[in-house]
């Protein structure tokens, strides 16, 4: 064809690509010869261009299918004849026998034989891959054009499948029908077992064999699950591992202690993980982990925790690392960590109960001490002593609990990775033993602990330290269920501190209250705050009254200054102050104040009723105190001086009343106990205590008692001690019954009774609130809701709730719904 003049013309393709046939057989012969060269590693002489051209031509001639089949056939033939034979030669009789389970060879022999086999296999596989990639390069055009058009798998992949069929699935030898694949699995597993036993194996070699299994698939779908590795090897591997670890765990549990077991288990897990990374495939990681975890942990964790050297041992000996191991292992198999949680809870409860029992024992022990020492001390003192012992026990209890808490906090933090579930569990256990029904004193003890610290403990401490102390108290408070009981005690102790000015720092008190407010809510601290408020108002009142008195213009140099605390009777637990019971309060005869005092008392009553009309003031002389300036006549002192002495005496109000009696009395006269009682009308017990402190206590013996003894009897006579002297100008005369004391049993019963009474109101209020809202409700639900509502304050007993409901029905707040299937109530408006 000539190119047209001025215009180009298309020419048909040169060399007649169409139409004329090419000599397929000859071309194929050339290609086949070249392939043979490639397989025998003589490729460097071959020309890629030529081979490609041949293949290209064939495909262009639409003989792609023939070519494909020929290549496929050639590969099959090559694998079946050459490669299989070379693999079979590698199989030593020992190896075969071993694989059947009849192994009598040493591990070393096995390893060498196995490695030889794997090496040969790896070599064959590697060669096959290299050759096939070269073939695929040459046949690129066929792959792209023929295979793509006719949906045949690329020749490379097809050849890989052939390797599986012709080599891996072929029998070991003519007479032995077992497949090579099985043997591979066996050898690899054997090697892994050797590694587990501490031998060094050729990981790289195994890894390459594993890669081979990974690259091949069981069927044609080529899905992930169908890889030979997954289908054939992995399963065997998991099974043998399971057996191995089952045996191992049994042996270890018998032979070693829990700590060793844990670290061993952890090492095994790590080892298997590493093995998957280095020797096998990472995808097996999670599966073998599960096997190891199942066998070493899940099925054994119970035994492990309960072992003699188990969790209990570790806790007691502060084996934080081992606990961490146990925790770690348990977490692997159980997200809830049931076993370790259970063990820890049990331990906490046991130890807590131990502390409780110690406290109970400590508080009771002293009673027997004086009993064993009959010559010593009268009964009352013994009781006093025992009360002090109880206080010590209470504080010890608190410190013990805190120490326990610290211990477990540390364990929790260091060994349990601050696990929130375990934190809950620990908290619950602490709550359990603190609120244990066999130990009802926790509220009181905690309050006492605070009281003790408020009065003495925090003296000289930095703010930070004070804060930690308060925080500790709050921590314990969190555990306490019966918050109302605690409130009651706290109020009592606070009251005492406030009125007697025993608090080291008002700031700290307020701090504590704000902490409680955060922790327990507004309701809880309402009354406590009101107490503080009363105190401030009282200060104002005192100042106001003073001004008022100044305003009267009555400049009496002997005037008595009055400092007054006006307490709202509802907020203050007054009844518990003087050890008297509420009912006695009303019937109690008023104390007769001396004239001067009586005058000022009236003055104040008048002043107060002007400010707040309609309020009644009740004077609680048993709680007041007075500063008296006393002048003692000249007398010879120990140091030989002879002079008049002035002392500022700080005594209780009663003490003042008593002392003032002696003002009018000539020095050589005396008053008997009965006379004093008759003149002052002070309650018996208070009088006894006050006289004790004025006449018995060695440092403040302002009165002389006859006969001299510790007890005060009605017939005793008292006279003014003119020769009294003290080192200081100011002398504080303590009243014997002051101080923080653990309640006596009687007191406790009273407290509880009061508590129960107030609880009854709370319950009733809650029930009514709920019913008002719901109108009708089933019994169970009502109880549940009531419990829920009161959860923040205390945990009422169900029987109590039932009783309250009954009572409400009686009072026609509620009625039963007749004919309801389950007990139900209706609210009556």
């Amino acid at each position, binding site marked *: 064809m*000539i190119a047209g003049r001025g215009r180009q013309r298309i020419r048909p393709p040169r060399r007649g690509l169409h139409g004329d046939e090419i000599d397929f057989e000859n071309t194929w012969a050339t290609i086949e010869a070249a392939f043979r060269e490639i397989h025998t590693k003589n490729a*460097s002489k071959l020309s*890629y261009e030529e081979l490609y051209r041949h293949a290209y031509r064939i495909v262009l001639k639409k003989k792609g299918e023939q070519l494909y089949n020929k290549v496929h056939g050639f590969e099959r033939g090559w694998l079946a004849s050459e490669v299989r034979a070379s693999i079979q030669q590698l199989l030593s009789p020992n190896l075969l026998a071993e694989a059947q389970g009849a192994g009598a060879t040493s591990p070393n022999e096995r390893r060498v034989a196995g490695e030889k086999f794997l090496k040969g296999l790896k070599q064959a596989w590697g060669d096959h891959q290299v050759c096939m990639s070269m073939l695929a*390069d040459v046949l*690129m*055009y066929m792959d792209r054009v023929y295979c793509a058009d006719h949906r045949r798998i690329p020749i490379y992949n097809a050849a890989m499948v052939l390797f599986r069929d012709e080599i891996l699935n072929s029998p070991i030898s003519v007479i032995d029908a077992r497949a090579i694949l099985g043997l591979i699995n066996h050898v690899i597993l054997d090697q892994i077992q050797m590694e587990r036993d501490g031998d060094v194996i050729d990981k790289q070699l195994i890894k390459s064999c594993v890669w081979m299994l990974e690259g091949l698939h069981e069927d044609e779908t080529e899905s992930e699950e169908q890889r030979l590795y997954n289908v054939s090897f992995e399963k065997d591997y998991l099974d043998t591992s399971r057996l191995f670890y089952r045996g191992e765990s049994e042996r270890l549990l018998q032979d070693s202690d829990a700590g060793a077991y844990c670290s061993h288990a952890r090492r095994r897990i790590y080892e298997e993980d590493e093995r998957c990374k280095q020797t096998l495939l990472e995808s097996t990681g999670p599966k073998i982990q599960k096997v190891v975890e199942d066998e070493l942990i899940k099925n054994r964790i119970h035994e492990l925790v309960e072992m003699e050297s188990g969790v209990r041992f570790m806790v007691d000996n502060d084996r934080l690392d081992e606990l961490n191991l146990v925790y770690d292992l348990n977490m692997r198999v159980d997200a809830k960590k049931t076993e370790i949680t259970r063990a820890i809870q049990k331990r906490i409860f046991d130890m807590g109960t131990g502390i409780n029992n110690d406290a109970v024992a400590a508080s009771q022990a002293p009673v027997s001490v004086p009993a064993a020492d009959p010559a010593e001390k009268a009964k009352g003192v013994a009781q006093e002593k025992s009360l002090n012992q109880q206080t010590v026990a209470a504080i010890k209890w608190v410190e013990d609990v805190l120490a326990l808490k610290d211990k477990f906090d540390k364990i929790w933090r260091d060994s349990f990775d601050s696990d929130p579930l375990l934190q809950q569990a620990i908290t619950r256990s602490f709550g359990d033993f603190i609120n244990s029904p066999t130990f009802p004193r926790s509220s009181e003890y905690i309050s006492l602990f605070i009281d003790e610290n408020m009065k003495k403990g925090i003296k000289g401490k930095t703010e930070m330290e004070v804060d930690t102390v308060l925080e500790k108290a709050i921590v314990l408070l969190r555990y306490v269920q019966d918050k109302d009981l605690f409130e009651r005690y706290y109020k009592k102790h606070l009251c005492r501190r406030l009125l007697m000015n025993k608090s080291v720092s008002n700031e700290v008190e307020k701090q504590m209250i704000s902490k409680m407010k955060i922790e327990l809510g507004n309701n809880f601290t309402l009354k406590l705050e009101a107490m503080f408020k009363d105190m401030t108002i009282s200060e104002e009142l005192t100042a106001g009254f003073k001004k008022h008195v100044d305003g009267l213009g009555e400049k009496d140099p002997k005037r008595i200054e009055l400092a007054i605390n006006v307490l709202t009777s509802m907020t203050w637990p007054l009844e518990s102050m003087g050890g008297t019971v509420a009912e006695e309060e009303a019937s109690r005869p008023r104390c007769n104040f001396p004239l001067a005092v009586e005058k000022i008392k009236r003055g104040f009553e008048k002043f107060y009723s002007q400010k707040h009309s309609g309020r009644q003031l009740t004077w609680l002389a048993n709680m007041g105190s007075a500063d008296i300036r006393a002048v003692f006549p000249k007398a010879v002192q120990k140091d030989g001086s002879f002079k008049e002495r002035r002392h500022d005496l700080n005594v209780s109000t009663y003490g003042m009343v008593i002392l003032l009696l002696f003002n009018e009395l000539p020095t050589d006269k005396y008053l008997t106990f009965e006379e004093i009682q008759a003149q002052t009308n002070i309650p018996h017990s208070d009088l006894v205590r006050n006289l004790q402190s004025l006449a018995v206590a060695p440092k403040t013996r302002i009165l002389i008692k006859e006969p001299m003894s510790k007890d005060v009897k009605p017939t005793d006579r008292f006279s003014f001690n003119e020769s009294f002297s003290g080192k200081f100008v100011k002398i504080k005369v303590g009243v014997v019954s002051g101080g923080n004391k653990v309640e006596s049993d009687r007191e406790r019963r009273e407290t509880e009774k009061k508590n129960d009474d107030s609880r009854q109101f709370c319950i009733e209020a809650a029930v009514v609130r709920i019913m008002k809202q719901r109108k009708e409700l089933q019994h169970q639900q009502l109880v549940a809701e009531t419990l829920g509502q009161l959860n923040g304050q205390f945990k009422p007993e169900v029987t109590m709730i039932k009783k309250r409901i009954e009572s409400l029905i009686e009072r026609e707040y509620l009625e039963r719904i007749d004919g309801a299937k389950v007990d139900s109530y209706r609210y009556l408006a």
Partner: protein
Amino acid sequence: MDVKKKHEIEAALATEAQAISSGQLKEENPLDVSEDFRAFCEACRRGDLKVCQEKISEGVNINARDKFDYTPLILASLCGHYEVIRLLLENGALCERDTFQGERCLYNALNDRIRNLLLSYDYAKSTNPLQPLAAHITSLLTRPTPKTTDITITAYGQEFQLHKFILAARSPYFAKKLATAPSTTTWKLPHSIPAEALGVALQYLYFQEVTIRRALFGLSDEQELVVLNGIDKIGKQLEIERLFEDITEVSDRRLLRQRRGDELERGRDQLDIWFRENVLRHKMTVDTDKVDNIQWDRDNSIFADILLRADDDEEHDNPDSDQTNRSPGPLEVSVLPVRNTAGALLGLPVRNVRSRSPSRRRRPKRSTVYPAHRAMLLRSEYFLTMFSSQFKEAQDTKTLQIITIDCSPAVLETILTFMYTERADFGLDIAIDVLFAADQLFIEKLKQRAAIIISALGNGSTSAVESSNPRGETDKDEAVDIYEVIRAGWDTRVQRLEEFAARYIAYRLENYIDQPEFAELVQESANRVKARQETDTVELVDDIRYYLSERFRLRFEDSGLDGMMDEDAALKASQADLLDSMNHFALADEAPQEMKTDIQSAVDQQIAAGVIRNLDGEEVGDEFAQDAMNYQILLGKIDTLLERLNLDA
């Protein structure tokens, strides 16, 4: 999308005009009043694919505008020539949204199909046509295997593995240096230039998009200064003056694109010049049986590391064809004895060998050998595989290996030109050969180019405007053997050629429908489908039917009766419409069975006689009626053919 106010647009246009006049910005659509461009625009107006392709090959600025402010793309879009638009877009015509010309183009689009085509080529998606070349060269910087580098440049302990031929082509400095010492394998940089600066310069030479900011990322101020100085220095030393300017950051997208475009263009031209002056100038033509005597030393002045050989076509119908067809004749190198000494020898240490005996009487077969660089050949997957494999070709030999490429020298030259310069302008005469060669060597872009050339130029002069040839008149001197084209299309899996051929046949169906070769072709197409187990239609026939409807529909539209033919309706529907219209005009209803007579001659006679008749020779009222009739007759014939071949379609 927010709509800009008129004054905003005016302001933007004004700033643009200012930028252009001050020389900061190149005008995207410069005024072009040359005759060539006028002809180009005219072709776009008429939809003349062939002229368009020719003009593009000649190198007219495809984005220029005429004196009426029209760009070729706007014209083609306005006149509704889908194929032309596609051709223009594929050759880099711009249609960017938010530009004046771009929006004009979209606004003027004749129909939605064209509009969608334009949108699909929005600049955001299209890339510079030279980008593949640039990307390849950039990748050479980091490609570890197969090894193609032949020089190592060291600066401060950092080594850069590079290619001498790229350095020589891109930097005059290297060109001079390497010309004096072509066998150098290492080069040390003066200590004043930091490695980072060299890196930037090299990336620039290798067509990577470098910006100063990226180059200086993470450096302290001091280091920055040193590097900047270094860049300045190395730019001067390597005589790439534009380096500094070109890598300076600019924010304007359009300016950036222009600069990148310019740089690629200039780089390509450098490569092109180098390629011509070195590779092409050193090609050797020798007798085929002497070809194995050629020995090139590995150290040669053009740094070639491989020789490619192409044999002349064995049997030519016309012995003089290679004189007429061959582009610039091969350089005949004088015969020199083989010398293996390395080093610079009197200019070029190039040796080639010819037979010791001078040419014989009978002209022996001749082969042409081109020196080449593997680095560039890697653009073909064929060569990539070859050089990465373990076969003979991939091994390092003392003298360069000769690889035979299964095509004629002209084709090989075309391929090499494409791989070195991305240029692919070749004639129709070798188009099919190029197509096959590109297919064999896996050079997809070249394949597409060949297909474009065939489909654009293949229509010959008759079909300059297809729509004006509704009656299937043909030039006696057909430019293409359409059977060859469609088979080539099938063999090389180029959809475009199949479409082209179907269209070609459809527009001349009268000439083909009765040929036995056509029946054979239809049968082949049917078999192909069956082999691929796809739908049981015959692709070729479907395509022909489609184009047939297009061919006649255009006529109906011209007659203002487009209401009858829903533009996008399926063929069946339009057939029914057509029947209606035929009845409407009360024309003779012809049954397909009557079509067995040899009508071709009859038609010829009728035409000669000037009587308007349909293809069966019946007389009809006017041309329109004739078209309607002919359409029906052709469809009928296709059905008959299928029936005869026992095909289901």
